[in-house]
């Protein structure tokens, strides 16, 4: 018994000793951290595919910057804000973190933005939708890179109202992201001459949506606004089809990713309007990147995954231009350069942290229209960045109106 205790003590001591030099060595590297949902409902939207995209970006950059090795740390936030924030803090304190890439879930990202401000570390919000990240919750170190609830609403809601979908009922995921998305869409619907009939707040991860859908149907609205994401989106759209609701109401995906469309199948998803920041089949640049990505993951990239690749390169280029990983200098550089790659053409980061770039309003093809694998979208409208993300609201103290 005594021997065992001694042995355990020794092992623990050795483990602590072994750790110390590792932590020191790490500060010589340029450390890119990625905190994302790797095992839950959003894991296919960014997840391991996004990690692969970051690795591709690091390899394309040459593996080093300023003569320092580029390494990546990955953690699963399990959709829990406290886990995301504490992991971020730990990496900042112990691993010499240079930049954080934030994955899905607005709630977790709001918590992580606060850490970014406290630790003064550049932070790219790549997965979350909540526009509050560059408004009430903005920080000097936040870059909201891929899309936000404002752009989604401006895209999808405007086009649908223009096409005659005047009255809206929302099925809203009951947390920060869902309510922000619903609010953004409601404003756009009203501004374009439509009207909001009602909404039902659905707990995140509900197992059955039929009750909520019957309420939507009872409202008599023309459009069913799905202010949810991931599995909730798939399951609610499936049930809407099953109950024949999509025959009377036009479903609007306020946030859908290409992986969702792939898993639902075109039979169920056809005709759906959605807004995205990236589509693999837009032009030669997007196809070239997506082809390399597909070889590694056997899936076409979502806008988040493409954004991870682009953001990593954007950050590394800024570090190279500045000649240091000093956070304030890198942020200043980031905010004055134009971003030109397969993700954005002439993109730029505004004072409030939004990366302004074109967004695409899409309609999902029918099975007959789809000619080859992953041929899922028709481009209905290319929205200029300024139109998509709207003017500066003044809610972020860094960017007065």
């Amino acid at each position, binding site marked *: 018994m005594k021997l065992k205790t001694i042995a355990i003590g020794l092992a623990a001591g050795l483990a602590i000793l072994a750790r110390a030099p590792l932590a020191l060595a790490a500060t010589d590297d340029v450390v890119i951290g990625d905190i994302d949902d790797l*095992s*839950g*409902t*959003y*894991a*296919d939207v960014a*997840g391991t595919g996004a990690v692969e995209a970051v690795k591709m970006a690091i390899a394309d950059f040459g593996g080093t910057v300023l003569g320092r090795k580029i390494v990546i740390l990955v953690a699963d936030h399990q959709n829990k804000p406290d886990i995301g924030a504490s992991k971020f803090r730990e990496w900042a304190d112990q691993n010499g973190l240079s930049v954080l890439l934030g994955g899905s879930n607005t709630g977790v990202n709001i918590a992580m933005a606060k850490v970014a401000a406290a630790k003064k570390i550049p932070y790219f919000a790549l997965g979350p939708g909540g526009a509050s990240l560059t408004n009430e919750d903005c920080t000097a170190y936040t870059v909201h890179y891929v899309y936000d609830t404002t752009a989604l609403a401006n895209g999808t809601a405007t086009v649908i109202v223009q096409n005659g979908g005047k009255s809206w009922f929302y099925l809203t995921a*009951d947390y920060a992201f869902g309510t922000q998305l619903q609010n953004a869409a409601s404003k756009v619907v009203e501004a374009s001459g439509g009207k909001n009939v009602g909404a*039902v*707040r*659905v*707990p995140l*991860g*509900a*197992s*059955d949506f*039929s*009750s*909520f859908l*019957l*309420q939507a149907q*009872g409202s008599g609205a023309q459009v069913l606004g799905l202010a949810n994401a*991931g*599995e909730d989106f*798939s*399951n609610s759209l*499936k*049930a809407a089809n*099953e*109950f*024949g609701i999509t025959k009377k109401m036009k479903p609007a995906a306020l946030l859908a990713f290409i*992986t*969702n469309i*792939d*898993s*639902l*199948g075109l039979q*169920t998803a056809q005709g759906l309007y959605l807004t995205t920041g990236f589509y693999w089949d837009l032009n030669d640049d997007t196809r070239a990147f997506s082809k390399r990505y597909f070889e590694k993951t056997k899936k076409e990239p979502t806008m988040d995954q493409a954004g991870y690749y682009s953001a990593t390169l954007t950050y590394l280029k800024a570090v190279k231009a500045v000649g240091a990983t000093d956070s304030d200098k890198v942020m200043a550089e980031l905010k004055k350069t134009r971003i030109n790659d397969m993700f954005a053409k002439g993109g730029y980061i505004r004072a409030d942290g939004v990366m302004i770039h074109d967004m695409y309003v899409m309609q999902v093809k029918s099975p007959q229209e789809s000619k080859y694998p992953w041929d899922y979208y028709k481009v209905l409208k290319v929205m200029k960045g300024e139109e998509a993300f709207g003017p500066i609201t003044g809610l972020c103290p860094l960017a007065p109106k």
Partner: protein
Amino acid sequence: MTEIFGVPVAVILGQLMLGLVNGSFYAMLSLGLAVIFGLMGIVNFAHGAFYALGAFAALLGLQHLGVNYWAALLLSPLVIGLLGIVVERLFLRRLYKLDPLYGLLMTFGLALVIEGSLHQFFGASGQSYPVPAALRGVFNLGFMILPIYRAWVILVSVAVCFSTWFVIERTRLGATLRAATENAPLLQAFGVNVPLVVAATYGGGVALAALAGVLSAPVIQVSPQMGSSLVIVVFAVVVIGGMGSIFGSIVSGLVLGVVEGFTKVIYPEASNIVVFVIMALVLVLRPAGLFGKE
């Protein structure tokens, strides 16, 4: 009278129907849990994972082996049930002499392993399983549109629940099963192979979960986390019905499905906690559950 408390009767009837559909799933899942707990004393936290496995078995069968829905209804529970027996023989039987907590930890770990593996192979978005051709379409009940498939779910669930109850409470086989939990050594002395009986019980409970999985495959995305979101509610259902009470689990499953359905109309935000509020009340007022024996 077309309104009750300001809610149109048509809406109430519609929600009652949908509540019964959801309640059918709760009943079938909690029934399996109740059988396993009542006869083996194991809190089977892997139940949700076996439910997901059942759905995935049906999906894989369809995609790779051409097993259609009707065959999957039979084959998937059989295969997953056998897997359950293997699990019981390999792991669970070593834990019977220990505190029940160990069984809970074992099955919880098992659930994480199963869900993690499914995640690794299939990703998080899940896949779609088509509704079988014979059950497509809808019934127009006047007050609502009911998809034929949902009606089918209620039928199958009620039939399965009743026959399970009948087998365990009213047949000789059921008597043997119950005797194995009451006094295993005595039963063994009568020449009954008790370990086999116990393993088969676990397999049976797991097969019920797999059957629920196959039934739900056409209506929701078949995904690794489909079980974990359901299993917690189902545990609450079992606690409310009375741990181990077969009849209690069936009735409380159906009733709670309906209660949850109404909550979705009256106060949707609370629909995922209403079952737990009821559980807390039941535990305070009647700790053994509504149908449990002290």
